[in-house]
């Protein structure tokens, strides 16, 4: 009955019956996608996750961005007029040549010119009255009576982006109440940042508006407005990687008016905060933020304009990705991201044509991908028939199995421990791991550096000779017998400690929650058993696991790193001694420390990409491979599927602001949705018929009983 009522109602309209969208949007250039986890933060000073950048990067415009097509990744201007060149100064403030020794450089000055004419998106914080005052900066409780969300403010305004907005945002990063995750890092690098942070700490407990007033007035010695469209940042010493930070949302400009507006009493209680309603200059503005249902981005009417890139890699000339070269951006008017917590409905809606692009969940992998004879991934016939295309790329990330170098058995600089770590590195077959647990979506790591990062070497020159050998044109894992020989040399023949006669037992720290984890842990146990080592799984919750890593009480653990920027420094610093987790609360979770490595790292991080830097990186990698503080694990490969009506989809693992390049053919999409989703009604009639057939005999029996007599 319910089904029949529903069907009668659903039959109205021209769109497919099962479309989750409004019929009016069928012909519009609306991009449909999904998200599985709601973004925690949309304040660019706080946000530090790829899930959040998927939205933020379309809204905010930091000074720089990554070129969409060129590889290796290259920085190009976004809201800045040009990529700034550093000017080096000595302690007396005198200019130094670019090739001055690092020790002589006391400061690096970056002067950034902001493109003139950039406007902020329409926002109530910038709305003014006829006499020029800010309309919503002195709100009273009566004014808020009818306000539930930001769009309830009827008036909006805009103004031109100025250098002061960038300076204000940098000051926000220093404010303790902003809780910026990179405040600690910037204390070390930006001149005056630490002083400002210490000064602002006194205002932490003050009311929000007073804090903001203090923030606006407080100077920061190293960051200055030079003129309306120029500002400078002074760094302590030399820090070439700083340019990459200028391409992250942390450095996106923020109008002070937004902070004042959101700080007013009554707005936080209505969940109207900067962390929820961004204000940027980018191609899109967030017009709906219901992260429990959907987020909607719409074209920013004041967007300053940008053109599709005209230069790319040689392959791009023939692939068609440059067909829109020189066209004004963005192409898409609206993007709707729906919350899909479960893989099954997300995948089904992609196959029905209701999402324009999709990743591939493990359960759906075999339906989408097949592996050819050469081991290459390709789409299945079903996907190809629908015109779906596959894009793959290696992520700038690494998953590794770390040895705690502070552990007396598995860690340390002794030859015995080193040989033991190398033997285990051979025995743990990560090719098998990728095949079983990642559907083959990974590339074996030969060093900490993934492909696409300067310093990575391909081919025979790039293999880790302690674990692989080059055979028949490809790397092959060394035989288990070699690992067993290493075990003997280390004093553990067949996994027995020759000193004590006891079997070697190691502890693996794990965060295990489900059956998948159990399978993975069993696999890991078997890898160690190959060498006669008993692996004891110490499963715990995530908090305790982190605590063990912080205090260095674990022995073995699995960990990962996703690059902030495409520079070898951002990977090799994971093995840098002064960055050790236990001693310095850094990101070196293995607590690896090698004086030669640290010295070379200090040299490498200041060098320009080139042969000299490559030579230093080669040496760094060689030391790390020899000491084997990690089993290098693998670099994950991302697989994404795109429907034929979604154009200009191109893998770019560093840029998050790629929505503006994408183009849609809504007519083609609508036709496909209709073709792929014809309503099938016969089962409804069949079920209805069965129900009638069931009820009829009952009704007949009731009638018979009523008419029958007692005797």
């Amino acid at each position: 009955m319910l089904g029949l009522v529903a069907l009668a109602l659903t039959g109205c309209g021209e769109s497919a019956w099962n479309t989750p969208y409004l019929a009016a949007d069928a012909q519009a250039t609306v991009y449909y996608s999904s998200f599985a986890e709601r973004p925690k933060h949309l304040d660019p000073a706080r946000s530090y996750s790829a899930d959040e950048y998927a939205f933020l990067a379309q809204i905010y415009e930091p000074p720089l961005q990554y070129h969409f097509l060129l590889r290796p990744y290259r920085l190009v201007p976004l809201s800045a007029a040009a990529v700034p060149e550093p000017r080096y100064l000595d302690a007396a403030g005198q200019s130094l040549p670019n090739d001055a020794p690092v020790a002589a450089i006391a400061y690096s000055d970056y002067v950034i010119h902001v493109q003139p004419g950039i406007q902020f998106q329409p926002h109530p914080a910038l709305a003014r009255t006829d006499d020029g005052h800010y309309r919503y900066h002195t709100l009273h409780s009566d004014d808020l009576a009818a306000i539930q969300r930001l769009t309830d403010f009827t008036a909006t305004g805009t103004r031109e982006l100025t250098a002061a907005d960038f300076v204000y945002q940098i000051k926000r990063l220093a404010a303790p109440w902003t809780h910026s995750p990179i405040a600690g890092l910037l204390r070390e690098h930006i001149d005056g940042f630490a002083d400002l942070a210490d000064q602002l700490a006194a205002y932490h407990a003050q009311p929000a508006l007073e804090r903001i007033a203090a923030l606006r007035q407080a100077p920061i010695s190293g960051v200055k407005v030079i003129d309306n469209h120029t500002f400078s940042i002074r760094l302590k010493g030399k820090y070439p990687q700083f340019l990459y930070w200028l391409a992250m949302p942390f450095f996106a400009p923020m109008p002070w008016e937004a902070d004042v507006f959101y700080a007013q009493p009554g707005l936080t209680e209505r969940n109207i905060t900067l962390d929820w309603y961004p204000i940027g200059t980018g191609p899109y503005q967030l017009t709906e933020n219901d992260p429990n249902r959907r987020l909607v981005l719409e074209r920013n009417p004041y967007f300053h304009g940008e053109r599709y890139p005209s230069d790319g890699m040689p392959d791009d000339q023939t692939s068609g990705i440059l067909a829109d070269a020189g066209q004004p951006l963005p192409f898409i008017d609206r993007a709707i991201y729906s919350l899909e917590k479960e893989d099954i409905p997300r995948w089904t809606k992609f196959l029905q044509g209701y999402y324009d692009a999709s990743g591939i969940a493990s359960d759906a992998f075999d339906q989408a991908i097949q592996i050819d004879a050469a081991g290459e991934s390709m789409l299945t016939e079903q996907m190809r028939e629908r015109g779906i295309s596959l894009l793959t790329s290696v992520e700038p990330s690494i998953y590794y199995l770390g040895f705690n170098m502070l552990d007396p058995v598995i860690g340390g600089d002794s030859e015995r421990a080193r040989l033991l770590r190398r033997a285990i590195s051979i025995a743990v077959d990560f090719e098998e791991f990728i095949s079983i647990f990642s559907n083959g979506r990974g590339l074996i790591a030969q060093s900490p550096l993934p492909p696409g990062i300067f310093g990575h070497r391909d081919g025979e020159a790039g293999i880790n000779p302690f674990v692989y050998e080059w055979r028949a044109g490809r790397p092959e894992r060394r035989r288990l017998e070699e690992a067993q020989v290493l075990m003997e040399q280390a004093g553990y023949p067949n996994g027995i400690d020759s000193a004590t006669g006891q079997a070697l037992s190691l502890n693996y720290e794990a965060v295990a929650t489900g059956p998948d984890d159990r399978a993975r842990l069993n696999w890991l146990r078997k890898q160690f058993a190959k060498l006669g080592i008993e692996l004891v799984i110490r499963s715990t919750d995530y908090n305790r696991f982190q605590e063990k890593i912080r205090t260095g009480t674990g022995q073995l653990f699995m960990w990962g790193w996703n690059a902030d920027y495409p520079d070898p420094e951002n990977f090799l610093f994971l093995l840098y001694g002064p960055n050790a987790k236990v001693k310095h609360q850094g990101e070196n979770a293995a607590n690896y420390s090698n004086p030669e490595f640290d010295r070379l790292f200090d040299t490498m991080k200041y060098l320009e990409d080139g042969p000299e830097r490559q030579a230093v990186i080669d040496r760094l990698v060689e030391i790390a491979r020899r000491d084997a503080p990690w089993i290098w694990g693998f670099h994950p490969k991302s697989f994404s599927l795109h429907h034929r009506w979604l154009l200009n989809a191109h893998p770019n693992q560093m840029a998050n602001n790629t929505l503006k390049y994408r183009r849609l053919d809504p007519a083609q999409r609508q036709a496909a949705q209709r073709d792929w989703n014809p309503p099938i009604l016969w089962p409804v009639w069949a079920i209805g018929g069965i129900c009638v057939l069931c009820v009829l005999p009952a009704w007949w029996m009731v009638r018979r009983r009523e008419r029958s007599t007692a005797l």
Partner: protein
Amino acid sequence: MIAYIVRRLLYAIPILIGVNLLTFVLFFVVNSPDDMARMHLGEKRVTTEAIQNWKAERGYDRPLLYNAEADGIARVTETIVFQKSIKLFVFHFGSSDAGRDIGYDISQRMWPSLAIALPVLVIGLVFNISYALLIVFFRATYLDWGSVVLLVAMMSISGLFYIIGGQFLIGKLWHLVPISGYDPGLNAWKFLILPVMIGVISGIGAGTRWYRTLFLEEISRDYVRTARAKGLSEQVVLFRHVLRNALIPILTGVVVVLPLLFMGSLITESFFGIPGLGSYTIDAISNQDFAIVRAMVFLGAVLYIIGLILTDISYTLVDPRVRLG
């Protein structure tokens, strides 16, 4: 009756204090304030100073249960447990640890949950009672045995199977309704059909069997025999006499869940993309957001107590013999 209600409400106070303390202890056994700060601040580049700032801003820098450094009553009041609990008793839920107003979130998310739960309850109730009465009418026939077998089979199937099976058949294979999603207002209906239908169907097995048992117990009573002896038709006997007298146990099951309806269903809402309250507590637990966890547990306890009081009151309405004293 008023004295009874007041007494029950007074009983509720120690229960709520106990529930709140238990939630507090269980939460902080697993998560320390430092863990919570790390979870909220992210995993990369978090400094000790940032953790201290986060804790101080949200009052998690105080001792958990007893403040030995304070004097007098402040030893108890200047603690996390007191500061975080006291406002709950005036239903001031405050902000989540992520900074959002909990009361506002609840008020926004309860409606989609209710939009599923209420039709499922009403349609399910009507269907299950009707079906149970039908079975009772045909008791000891093949229809009765067949139905019992069918109902036991339906009870034995996991709720998740109904959801996945329903999405597969109706959304994916037959293309009749959206497989998931939600629109506010009147546009919600096409997203609600499938979850409501699945909610009703998945409840038929247990619900109908329970009502069948109740009706069978009633139908063997003397007043039923008397009614039949008076020459009343079987429909009148069942609907006017048996159903009315079986209402007390039915009400026990129904009224007690009424206030809890808006709390939603985690699995249903996750699979159908319904922006309800079902996942609010679970998400808060995984995000280590104590403010939401304590608010939702407290609210759940309050609603359950209200449900029990309503059940007692409803007894007096359906059975004149019951007096609340």
